[in-house]
Each structure stands twice: as C-alpha cells, then as structure tokens.
C-alpha cells in the first residue's frame, strides 16, 4: 500500500426526492487499500459506490480519481469496475464472453484477450469453465465470474457491493479469504460494501462506518473496534454497552464517570480513558456516554466498587457465553465470557466494572464527515 491517494470524495451530497441519502461525505482512499463501507441498509453506502462508479451523479461535491475530477464522467469513461450485488452476469453469454466483454470493447487483440481471460479464470479457480453459461453455475461460481469480469479490466479501483451477501456462511468465509488473496496479489484498490461487521473487521485495511448518509468513523479495524468514536459505531461494531454518566473528576488520561442504575440511587464511579484529541473536549461535570465492549465487562460476586446488578440470563452461542444483566435505568447490559462456565446463576447479584482503558468516551465530537476532512483522516491513519 502506498501513500498515494487514488480516489477522493469531497463533500458529496445526494438526494432522491425528499430524502437526503448522502449528507456531504468526504473520504480519501490510498492506492492498494482495502476499504470497507460498513453500515445498515439504507445508510447510503450503495449510493456512494454508485457515485464512484458513475452510475449516479451527486447533487454537490466532487469525485477525484487519480487527481482528475471525474464527477460528471460516464461509467464507461472511468477506469473503475464494479462487482454487483446480484452479480449481473449477462445470461446470454457464456463465462468466457462475460469476462471478455470489457476487453472486447477496448478492442484488445484476440490472442491477448484469450490469454487474459484464461489467466483470470485461473485466478478465481474456474479454469475450464469458459464455455459454461451463467445459469449452469452455482452461486459461489457466479460470484467468482463477476469478480473476474471486473478485475480483468485492470481497474484503478474495484467496487464491490455486498458481493458475498447471497452466499451461505461457510462459502462466505471461504470467499473472504479468497478476495483478500486476490486483492493482495493484484494490488488493486478495493472499496467493499457490507453490513456484516465480521466481514469488515476481517478483510479491511480501513473501515468507514456509515449511518444516515454520513461517516460515523473512519479508521482501522482496530480503532473502530476498540475506540469507537460514536455510540452508533460502538453498537454497530462488536457488542458494546453504552452507559450514560457524568464526569466527576479527571486524573491524567482517566476520567471518572458517575454512573447510577436508578433515578434516585447512589452513583458509582467508573473509569474511562481519554485519548489524545479528546483531552480538550472533556471537563468535570460534563454528561458523557461510556462504551464498554461486552467482553471487557468484569464481573464478580462480592460487592465492590462497581455497579451492583442482577443476572437475567445466560446464553451460550458460538463459543461465547453471553450474560444479560439488569441495568435498571441503564437498560439491559451484556457481558461475555470465553467458554461455557460462569460462576453466576440467573437472579444472582453481581458487581460489574471495567479497566480504565476499556471504557471509551463516545459522541464527544461530531461524526467523521462533519468534523474532519479526509486529509485529516488520512494523516491520522499514517501516524
């Protein structure tokens, strides 16, 4: 991955009728990067992708590809290719012709075309499938053809719109690995859309969490997971508990937050870390929200300095034991543990707290697309 910016979005807005789908988003993507737009359906991620592809024109703002403004260029005039959600393979052409479609339009000599298509078939492990029709392929195979058809054109940026959405879990895992392998080998910039946080965390160099037409946070999987900037990002990536409170005092990098689980009840002091940029934004007496990942909630039977809560139920799934806690006015809190055994039973009272570094203050600043330009996001990434 180089530091060269290949694609830049600047203050893009887009409305369909009365609904504003994109509210001025900015993003800069570096050559060779695997970036994921992560968000629930309707958050504007597909529209963003379509604007990059040229299938949609933004109302305001610009798209720069390799430094050139391509905002008003037709899809066929930009060196960007898309892997569509439903694959969109041409049903009247066989696999070979599907993959060769783009090359044919570019009038690539026949011999070179055959060579390149066959190379692609090999890359996606479909060697010998050239004469099959799309209808004769399985979902996973169609997916591979769709990838090959886009990649064969050597795009500067490859756009993938939930490419694995229609596949079953096992195949999806396998394709995740394969996509990553293809991306590493070809050194093509990938812009990947998904609503699946695991997929995003597994594959991406950077994740842009999207919500209602803005970027909530842009950062590495690590940053987004461990240091969510907003409550939305915290809830969307990993299971986070969002606990409201008021800062009582600040000691160096740690803020102590008064939290109480009933309107009249006594407040308990719990810690949260203050990361670099936040120092200037917090002061004692301020109302804040602390995000704590469920696996970071510490539980013990003995009364202590934490919140005293009742266990509602225990639930074992996927190697993790999820413990639901009655948080009173805080709502239901959840803690998780590796393995099946936990010394707590439903109805028992436990004390919950966490390490200072596991409490993350969220919603202190605006979302990424409002507060900081793409250049700033890029700089932070490099630091």
């Amino acid at each position, binding site marked *: 991955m180089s530091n060269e910016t290949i694609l830049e979005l600047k203050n893009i807005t887009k409305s369909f009728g009365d609904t504003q789908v994109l509210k001025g988003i900015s993003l800069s993507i570096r050559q060779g990067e695997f970036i994921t737009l992560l968000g629930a359906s309707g958050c504007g991620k597909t529209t963003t992708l379509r604007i990059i592809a040229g299938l949609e024109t933004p109302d305001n703002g610009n798209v720069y590809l390799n430094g050139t403004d391509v905002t008003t260029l037709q899809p066929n005039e930009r060196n960007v290719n898309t892997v*569509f959600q439903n694959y969109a393979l041409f049903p009247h052409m066989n696999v070979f012709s599907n993959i060769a479609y783009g090359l044919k339009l570019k009038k690539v000599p026949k011999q070179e075309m055959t060579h390149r298509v066959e190379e692609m078939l090999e890359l996606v492990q479909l060697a010998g499938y050239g004469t099959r029709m799309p209808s004769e392929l399985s979902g996973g195979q169609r997916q591979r053809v769709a990838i090959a058809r886009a990649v064969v054109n050597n795009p500067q940026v490859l756009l993938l719109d939930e490419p694995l959405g229609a596949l079953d879990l096992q195949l999806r895992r396998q394709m995740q690995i394969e996509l990553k392998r293809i991306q590493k080998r070809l050194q093509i910039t990938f812009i990947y859309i998904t609503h699946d946080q695991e997929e995003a965390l597994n594959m991406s160099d950077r994740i842009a969490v999207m919500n209602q037409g803005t970027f909530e946070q842009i950062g590495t999987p690590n940053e987004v997971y461990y240091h969510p900037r907003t409550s939305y990002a915290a809830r969307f990536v990993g299971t986070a508990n969002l606990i409201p409170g008021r800062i009582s005092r600040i000691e160096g990098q740690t803020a102590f937050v008064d939290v109480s689980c009933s309107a009249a009840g006594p407040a308990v002091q719990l810690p949260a870390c203050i990361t670099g940029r936040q120092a200037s934004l917090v002061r004692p007496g301020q109302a804040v929200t602390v995000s704590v990942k469920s696996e970071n909630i510490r539980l013990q039977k003995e009364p202590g300095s934490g919140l005293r809560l009742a266990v509602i139920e225990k639930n074992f799934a996927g190697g993790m034991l999820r413990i639901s806690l009655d948080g009173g006015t805080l709502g239901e809190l959840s803690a998780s543990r590796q393995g099946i055994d936990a010394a707590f039973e439903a109805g028992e009272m436990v004390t919950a707290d966490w390490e200072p570094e596991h409490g993350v203050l969220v919603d202190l600043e605006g979302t990424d697309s409002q507060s900081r330009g793409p250049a700033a996001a890029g700089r932070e990434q490099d630091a």
Partner: protein
Amino acid sequence: MLSRQASQEAAHTVNAAGRKRNRWWMTVMPLYLFTIFFVALPIVYLFVLSFLTRAQTWGVVNEFTLDNYLKILKPVYLNTFKESFQMAVLTTLGTLFIGYPFGYLMAKLPKKTKSLMMLCVVIPFWTSALMRMYGWIILFRSNGLLDKVLMGIGLTDSPLKLLYSYPAVLVGMVYSLLPFMILSVYSSTDKMDWSLVEAARDLGATRWTAFFTVTIKMTLPGILSGIILVFIPSMGLFFIADILGGGKVMLVGNLIQNQLQSGRDWPFAAALSVVLMVFTSMMIWIYRKATGVKDLEGLL
C-alpha cells in the same frame, strides 16, 4: 389368505387412484371439448373441404379432387400470395420500428404514467376496428384532413390521392396491429434486469453499445412474439385492404373472402386457407429455428 388380502388392498389403491384421475379428467374436459369442437374439427372440415368439388349452383359435391390446390399455382393467385407476404413483412417492420421504441420507453416510465400510457394503447380496442378504418378515410381522402393540412402549410399544392392506394393500406395495417407489438415489447422490457445494462456501462460500454449488446438480446423474446402476433394476422386481414385499398390491393385474405362470398367456391377458399395456414406455420417454425429463442413471452 394373506395374499388375497394383499391383492384386495392393491385393488383398492388402484381404485382410489382411478377415481382421482377421473376427477382430474372432469376439470380439463371442458377445455378439451372446446378445443375439439371449435379448433380441431373446423380445421379438419376445412382440410376435407379443400379436396372436394364445387357444385354448379351452391355448396359442394363429394367428389375428391386436387384441382383446388393446382389452381393456386396459377400466376394470378401466386402473385396474391407474394403480395400478401410483402405486405405482411412491411407491416411487421413498420410495427417493429414504431412499436419497439414505444414499448421500450413505456416500460421505463414512472408507474403512474405507465398505466396511463397502457390505457392509451388499449383504448382503441374498445371501439370497432371497422369504425377506426373509416376514420382513416376521413384523413386520407382527396381534400381530406391530411391534404388540407399539408396544402395549408404549403408542403403540397395538390391533393395526394392517398386513399385507395398501397401506402394507405400499409398505414392501416400498421395502425391496427401496432398494439400487439407494443405490448409484447413492453412486457419483455418491463421484466428486464437493468443492472445488466449498468454492468455493461461499468465495463466500458457506451449507451448504444450496451443497448445493442445487452438490452436487445434481453428483449428478443418480446420482439419475436410481437413479430409473430403481427405477421400472422397481417397475412389474413382483408377488411383493411377492402376499406383503404378500395379493391386495388388484393391480399390472400381478400381472395379467400371473395371466393367464399361472391365466388361461392368454398373448396377453393378452403384450399387457400389451408395453404395460408401451412405457410404461416412454416414461417414461425423457420423463425424459431433461426433465432433459437424458446421463450416467446408465453406465446407457443
């Protein structure tokens, strides 16, 4: 004892299955009866009639002959077939050139406008076809509406004498068969997966290239069913040529009608009909073989 019981049981199940089949028969029976009485038998009757001899005054004599078919080989009748075929081809091309863009654009309209347009296409069916043809007379006749407008704006200085000519018949044919083409093209365009066009554009195709390499191919079933729906009737339609051609344009349909009514030669009319039927069936067969399209929008 045991085996007898078993065989009784077996007989029982066979009986049950038999009853079930009986009931199934009852539901489809009306369909079969309808087809036999109103489609198959008339065709058989037509076929038999075409080999019989014409009676001196009225009706037919039960005498086998091939004369009716040999008569068709006369240049005057062969020429009628040739002319009909030519008219049918021109009509089909005419409806295709107007109907394809029409049906295609109609499918791309927003939902509300779409149903309004659909209504406009279908409304003419609510009035008699004959009346609509008389409408064209008002437009086409000497010093009629068309002439007045053209002469009024100075494009022509004398009446065009369009009525009772070949072009008038062609316009009438295209006009009356156009909805079939529009609706066929519309139904296949409406089903179109537009992400295919986007994929083509994304892979470097211009609007036109995408249209010719993807859209046309995906709407081919609609085009073909439209062609069949227009071509077949245009071989046999007679009243349009009668009304707008004024007897100057003679198509197979007119020939059959003449033989049946004024000529009173039923066997010859039957032979002409059989030949027309065989000819159009062959055309469809060749067409399907040539294009390889299997799904014709539910047709055939």
